[in-house]
């Protein structure tokens, strides 16, 4: 191949990448720069040095947001992996319905997270909701999923688990199916299903898939916004004010751009750490390596 042609055809990358660069890298750099300024919607912009970060460290609301976000990310991801594994494993016993079941599982995934939040807002509604009625007729005690701090956090986790367990389940299930087929081809041993096959598949096949799926879910949970905004709007109090909601509020309601930027830098750093660590750990060499 002539190198000249190769170089020329690289030009096809330029428009897309230039635009993407403008829309992602420049804003990311902009956030970092803005975090060093005292910049309010009504006032002038003055240099603030590290003051915004000092405020961040001192701010109990920010600490709360970080805590809540991590809590949601860890619990949701953990539940999703365990449930997803159970569902994918169960599916191995029912090869005939495998594909139609996967189709049903995709339903939550194609729903807008905003709408998912709203559906659950209705299901959990303390007066008219489906679950509150069910609870009232079956179980004793009070049911306040949206009006108590722990209830609201649980509700957010619940919605995320509802929407994204299928994602993990299907990823695992597809990998599992392929691996079993290969295994059978190679060994041609009958009855090597269930736990026996699981031992062969677990390490080399399922662990990497789970790793990747966890990485996706962890980072998506760290930036969770839609569901929270619709389900609880960060409340009650600040029980579910995740980092994204925290930042959103400071931009839109308070017009405190510099401070919001410093919080965004913190979120960016957090997501990057998870991304870099995850990428290394699961040697996530994306397709086309």
């Amino acid at each position: 191949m002539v190198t000249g042609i190769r170089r020329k055809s690289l030009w096809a990358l330029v428009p897309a990448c230039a635009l993407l660069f403008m829309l992602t890298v420049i804003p990311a750099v902009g956030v970092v720069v803005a975090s060093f300024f005292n910049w309010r919607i009504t006032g002038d912009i003055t240099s603030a040095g590290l003051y915004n970060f000092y405020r961040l460290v001192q701010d109990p609301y920010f600490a709360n947001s970080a805590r809540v976000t991590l809590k949601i990310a860890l619990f949701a991801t953990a539940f999703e992996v365990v449930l997803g594994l159970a569902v994918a494993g169960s599916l191995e016993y029912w090869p005939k319905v495998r594909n139609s079941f996967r189709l049903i599982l995709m339903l939550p995934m194609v729903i807008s997270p905003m709408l998912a939040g709203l559906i659950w807002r209705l299901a959990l509604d303390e007066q008219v909701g489906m679950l509150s009625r069910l609870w009232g007729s079956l179980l004793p005690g009070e049911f306040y999923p949206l009006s108590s701090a722990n209830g609201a956090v649980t509700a957010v986790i619940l919605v995320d688990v509802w929407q994204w367990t299928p994602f993990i389940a299907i990823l695992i299930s597809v990998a599992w199916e392929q691996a079993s087929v290969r295994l059978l081809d190679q060994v041609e041993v009958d009855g090597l299903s269930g736990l026996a096959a699981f031992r062969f598949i677990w390490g080399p096949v399922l662990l990497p898939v789970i790793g990747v799926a966890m990485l996706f879910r962890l980072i998506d949970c760290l930036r969770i916004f839609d569901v929270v905004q619709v389900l609880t709007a960060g409340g009650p109090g600040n029980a579910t004010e995740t980092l994204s909601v925290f930042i959103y509020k400071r931009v839109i309601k308070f017009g405190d751009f510099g401070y919001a930027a410093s919080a965004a830098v913190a979120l960016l750093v957090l997501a990057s750490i998870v991304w870099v660590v995850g990428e290394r750990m699961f040697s996530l060499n994306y397709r086309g390596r």
Partner: protein
Amino acid sequence: MNSSPNTQKSRALTVVVLILLVAAVAVVWLYWGREPGGGGVASSTPKSSTTLRVALFKSPAVDAAQKLIPEFEAQTGIRVDLDILPYAELQDVVQTEFLARSPRFDIVMADCIWIPKFADAGYLGEIDRYLRDPALTPKDYNYEDLIPSVADYLGKYPARGKTYGFPFMTNSHVLAYREDLYVKYLQPKGFRRPGTTPETAWTWDEYLRAAEVLTMPNAKLPGGTQWGSSMQAKAGAWLVYEWYSWLYGFGGKDIDYSIMRPMFDSPASVDAIRQYASMVGKVAPRSVLSWGHEEETQALGSGLAAMDATWNVELTGYLLDPSTSPHAKDFKFGLSPVGRSGKPTPDMGGYGILLSKFSTHPQDAYRLMVWLTSPAVHRRIVLDGGTPFRYSEMKDPEILKKYQVYSIYGIALENSVYRARVPQWPEIEDIISKELTPVMEGRSNPKEAGALMTKKIEPLLPKR
């Protein structure tokens, strides 16, 4: 892998795409270096010297005003463009234009809690000299007819001592109760009827006791309980707006302006936190922590809750509409409970129409503001769904026949309290809401909450 055959294809696509990109960049570039004060956006320049542009948000009062605007245009020859935006966007659009010092809007409609921010940043045009000019303010405008507290809260910014506009829509609290339930349960226990004068109105203690009486099992309602009181305790503006009535009712205070110190930790303020929070779970369902305007109205209208000490007057129409509210005919209104001062202390809300500092024809804009709020015109807006703010409107037989609640609304407005009039209000509101909610959940105590509010709000206040 090779790819040379597609070079030409890539090139063709690239050309198209590059053109698009260059166009996009050019658009951004053109506006990039725009100086603040440099005249604003091209499209925002008024078309002729006699066209006024007004930013408003969609609401019954605005709908009513829109119908009357052609009369103003015919009388004066001034053209009027109304930009009617959804409420959620109004602040941002207006703020954006102000930031660019753009003359796009001559008049803006603003929520009471934005006025300090706008005034402090120098976005609003002063109208005091126009008010004194008989050519611009006709005698029959009768500024004294405006309820002074409303004219002050929705048109002025005390820290600057200036007037920027007039009230346009008002809101405050009255006590809503059900006549049928009063006769059946409260009268036999010796409760007097919630009064319509400060002398006969209930006290907060009476309200709390009555709410306890009215909290009772009712299998027909979802959850199986009829609750004594409706609330709007959702985090944010809802909770804070409602709680302010209690804060002042129990003799508390938000800020001591003479020393610029928050007073949320005073014993009276702490008592207000305690009493307000005591309702949750006792006379109101715990769910109120996720209730805003809508749920509060729904609970009252459906019979789930029996009373509301802080009923939003602007929503009365919905409560009294028999097509949506099964108890419409039973609702009665009294003054919201009187506080330690012997007067009711309902918190005031509402919207003013304010002159933009950057208006290119402030006198014409002022004429429109005066016209819209004049006794003759505003009366018609009220009859068509607006809310009143003139003494004459509170006594107008035609208005009272249609909206009986306005007979006590004047007293409510006159005695209303304000939320802190400082530019940092959004942050203050957020802090109050965040510290108050845990008390209602039982995770914190009133004293601690008051202390935390004070501690966190103090650094935000401007130093005198």
